[in-house]
């Protein structure tokens, strides 16, 4: 187990370094931030001075080695745009996104598993058809569209919840609700498929021959066996949320890392882009390792 974790950590570290190198050079291809920071009327001299101050005049490889040198000391540099350390900006934003992703994925996991399992148990029946149909519709709608409709309906027309922002728990309802829909639709489908297989397995037959009740057959015998593919997809979806709840964060004014990332990309705030990618990538790698461990917990046959 330990050697497995070690190997995974090394592999992740290699990927991480590759990622940083790739992002560093690719992001520089998108142009010079100077014009974005200075007013359109700024003189050529002040532009030059800006480049000088921010080290943009050096050859790219010099900038790269300087960056990597700082990075080794865990210094991600200053955000040009926000005049604060890039890592601070990213970490505070990341905490928001992490919470958002955790809450959403917990809700998705629980509800999708229950609904998907029941659909699988009644496969082909009315409940199954309805559940499948609506979860698919949910998974098919563009999220920004759903978000704005939700604001118009639930906040403006009905006045049930605040339109946007943070502050109280009420503020979390709409963003979570909108983020919920797509992974929910997808995972219901995965759970359903996986559960259909599990429910037609031999051990479920044994359980029925033992006279075990339906509920434990579904949620004890079949579910745990059906969870492995489901967990993989849950992991992918959680990673997608960590990496890109951009749309929802933008609309609901949620200060998450997705919004920070898109703003920084559009503003060519490279240090923040790199720090954001670093932090989310680390989070995703850690999550993938956790998922591998979870595999082993769920299925005693898997040993690393």
């Amino acid at each position: 187990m330990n050697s497995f974790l070690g190997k995974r950590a090394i592999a992740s570290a290699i990927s991480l370094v590759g990622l940083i190198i790739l992002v560093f050079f690719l992001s520089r291809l998108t142009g010079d931030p100077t014009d974005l920071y200075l007013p359109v009327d700024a003189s050529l001299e002040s532009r030059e001075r800006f480049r000088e101050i921010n080290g943009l005049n050096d050859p790219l490889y010099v900038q790269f080695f300087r960056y990597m040198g700082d990075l080794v000391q865990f210094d991600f540099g200053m955000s040009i745009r926000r005049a604060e350390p890039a890592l601070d900006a990213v970490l505070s934003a990341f905490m928001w996104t992490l919470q958002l992703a955790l809450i959403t994925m917990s809700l998705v996991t629980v509800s999708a598993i229950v609904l998907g399992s029941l659909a699988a148990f009644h496969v082909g029946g009315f409940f199954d058809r309805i559940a499948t149909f609506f979860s698919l519709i949910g998974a098919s709608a563009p999220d920004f569209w759903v978000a704005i409709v939700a604001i118009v309906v639930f906040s403006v027309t009905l006045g049930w919840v605040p339109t946007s922002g943070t502050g109280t728990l009420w503020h979390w309802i709409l963003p979570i609700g909108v983020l919920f829909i797509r992974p929910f639709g997808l995972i219901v489908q995965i759970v359903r498929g996986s559960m259909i297989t599990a429910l037609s397995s031999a051990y479920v037959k044994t359980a029925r021959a033992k006279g075990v009740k339906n509920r434990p057959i579904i949620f004890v015998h079949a579910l745990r066996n059906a969870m492995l593919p489901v967990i993989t997809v849950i992991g992918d979806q959680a990673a997608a949320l960590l990496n890109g709840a951009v749309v929802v964060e933008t609309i609901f004014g949620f200060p998450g890392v997705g919004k920070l990332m898109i703003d920084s990309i559009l503003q060519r705030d490279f240090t923040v882009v790199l720090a954001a990618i670093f932090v989310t990538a680390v989070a995703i790698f850690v999550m993938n390792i956790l998922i591998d461990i979870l595999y082993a917990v769920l299925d005693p046959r898997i040993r690393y």
Partner: protein
Amino acid sequence: MALTEQPVIPDAPPAWISILKMLWRDKFAFCAALFLLLMILCAVFGPALLEGVATKQNLRGRNSPPFDFSQPWVMWLGGDALGRPLLARIIVAAQNTLMVATGAVICSMILGTTLGLIAGYSSKWASQVIMRLADVIMSFPSLLLAVIVLYMLAPSVGNLIVVLAITRIPVYLRTSRAEVLEVRERMFVQAAQVMGASTRRIVFRHILPVVFPTLVTIATLDFAFVMLAESSLSFLGIGIQPPEITWGLMVSQGRPYLTTAWWLSFWPGLAIILTTLSLNLLSNWMRTALDPVQRWRLDTPRKK
């Protein structure tokens, strides 16, 4: 009679007839297939027939409401912010939309599958390199990629395909690799080895055809995903740009009018939802149709 061995099962009717029959059994999937066929027709013939109508603007008749049947039929779904007929625009936009999605899915499927086959059936070292590459791509934010590509190149359909294709590679890569690892242990692969079959023959003749249905199922789902991703990019302003049109761009452009002229973003949104829904339904059907254990559900008339 078992002693004389069971007679050979009679020849099945040609494949396409039995597929059509199975499709007919699942009414949802049947409607989905019809709808998709219609969309494909729109995509192929739409631009040639309606290009002129779809770009004819009428500023003073902007945002004209839908269901005004006294207007020509292209206006039945209303007009957009420049007074252009929505129905005509949706039909014309089908081409770009489907081209982006198809292009991205096919490119990522070919690339991802090839890499996955190599990773699954070659040296450990190559496999490690490819898997690390997959990690890097997966944690590389698609937004940044979009900005990079669209900054360096123009925001054309082709480049959008490149962006979306790259981001979807890991899905196919990981799936095909996992499947290859499983399939290569099957006995018919050993049988081919015993006959002296080359690696290339084993991969392309024996493994790929077995893995292929799984990949096609994923591709169908991914098609929907890519369409939604494309619309999200449009929302963030880094997708395709006018005067090109896609459904995603139309939804995005209509979004400011959600409260005043809902039809601007509703119809293209509906087109996206229906198309992705159809794809999802079809993918569900395919999963059943391709699974010999589940296929009977489509072969027999429903009892209840």
